[in-house]
């Protein structure tokens, strides 16, 4: 069975983002871009399922500007078999991404779709759930463990109070949480090999999907800065301050 992973190109998690002076967004020019960390976990999980003989082919899809090819190459260097790029310069919001992925999935017919639970740029946490809805498939969000047997999956999910396990028949959409696995680094030979792996390029128009944004960003601002306070010299002084000055204990 085929697995499809979706990988988003985002500002690298180590970059301290700066809001643009004109308040239209955050500075992304000359900023290091990387694969969304939760999508790396998705790629890793698909590769492990292939190594376990459950998945036969791993397809990495990315959507957006031409440079998303680099993000796909990263997935290919980790070990994915081939890539699909849906190229557009239009700002893609989760609903549009879900519609585009649905169109790709109808063509590729994977039985399992794994994607990150959240992108660290817009922090939306929507795409996987939306995609499952549009396909009419089961969804297992925030996965920390995936077990697949005879076309059925049992997924353990990270929920607020602890863990929850759900079971369903494939095909399905799974979104990854932190503890699902630890993604591998791509080795140099694999990075070289990845350059020869195929990437199909298509567009929203070719897929017949309207990607017009539904949310208009009116402005982007920096949050109020928190002022640092004082250093205290001892535990007793700390407790005094908390009691008498801050009055929180």
């Amino acid at each position, binding site marked *: 069975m085929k697995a499809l992973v979706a990988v988003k190109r985002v500002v690298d998690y180590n970059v301290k983002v700066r809001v643009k002076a004109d308040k239209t967004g*955050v500075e992304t020019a000359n900023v290091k871009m990387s694969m969304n960390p939760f999508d790396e976990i998705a790629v890793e999980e698909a590769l492990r399922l292939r190594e376990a003989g459950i998945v036969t082919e791993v397809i990495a899809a990315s959507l957006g500007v031409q440079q998303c090819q680099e993000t796909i190459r990263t997935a290919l260097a980790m070990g994915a078999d081939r890539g699909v790029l849906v190229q557009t310069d239009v700002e893609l919001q989760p*609903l549009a991404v879900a519609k585009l992925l649905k169109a790709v999935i109808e063509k590729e017919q994977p039985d399992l779709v794994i994607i990150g639970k959240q992108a*660290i740029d817009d922090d939306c946490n929507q795409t996987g759930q939306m995609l499952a*809805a549009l396909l009419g498939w089961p*969804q297992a969000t*925030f996965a920390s463990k995936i077990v697949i047997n005879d076309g059925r999956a049992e997924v353990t999910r990270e929920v607020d109070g602890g863990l929850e*396990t759900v079971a369903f028949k494939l095909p399905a959409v799974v979104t990854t949480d932190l503890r699902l696995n630890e993604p591998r680094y791509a080795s140099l030979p694999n990075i070289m090999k990845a350059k020869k792996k195929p990437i199909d390029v298509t567009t929203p128009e070719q897929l017949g999907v309207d990607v017009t944004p539904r949310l208009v960003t009116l402005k982007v601002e920096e949050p109020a800065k928190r002022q640092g306070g004082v250093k205290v010299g001892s535990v007793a002084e700390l407790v005094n301050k908390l009691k008498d000055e801050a009055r929180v204990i």
Partner: protein
Amino acid sequence: MSVLVVAEHDNRALKPATLNTMTAAAEIAKAAGSDVHILVAGKDCRPVAEAAAQIAGAAKVLLADDTAYDHGIAENWAPLLVKLAAGYSHVLAPATTFGKNLMPRVAALLDVMQISDISAVELADTFVRPIYAGNALATVQSKDPIKIITVRGTAFAPAAATGANAPIEAAEATGAAGLSEFVRAELSKSERPELTSARVIISGGRGMQSGDNFHLLEKVADKLGAAVGASRAAVDAGFVPNDYQVGQTGKIVAPELYVAVGISGAIQHLAGMKDSKVIVAINKDEEAPIFQIADYGLVGDLFKILPELDEELGKRQK
């Protein structure tokens, strides 16, 4: 048209985040000149509907009682919400794992974009939401006919749990979708308060060095009536389970007092706690970024400081 709040509960009691969501809904209803209804869906959950009917600002409670709605299975809940949404201008749920799992599924079926994790209501169609781990705040306007929204609980004060006496109306169940089944839950059992509603939180980071050492934190937590949290580094290192995690990808908290112990202060951790009223940092590295946002900093060895703190608090309680 009214605003609908999706209540989160365990069939016995409302989760506190429902009250914060109610406040956001009331602000929207005020801007739109309408009122707020609450949906309680679950199994044998009438007591929850009765509690919801008392929440200040509730004009009506819809009760959908059916086995299909047990355990919050999104595949079963989504058709119910899609059906009900036709009669509402906005549908809101808390941005908890329950709301985050459910609402995008509803939004996609309605062909609308969700507005995730709002932290302020500007107008009935315009909201503020944090992006980039809270390092920027985006003001967004929705052009969709129905607004599907999740609410950041810490950004809105809880509505009063009593004060109203709203009528309870039965909502027709839509049945099970037959797509997914609940197998089991392994919920952390703790006598301590829940992280997202605790008045005081004490969190440990990589500096704790092991999961066993968290008992040092727990002793202090018990003196303070605090919940225990952790940084992503501590969760990654396997010291504690993921449901302890405070941060961009974990829980967002804003208690009266947040004590960060052995936590350096990575951006993604600060994103989850920087709105706390008072922040205390205990760290041996005086250059740690956490000190830049802490109201009170104590530089030193946490393995010495925590027992001292425990003793000091104990002395004062006598």
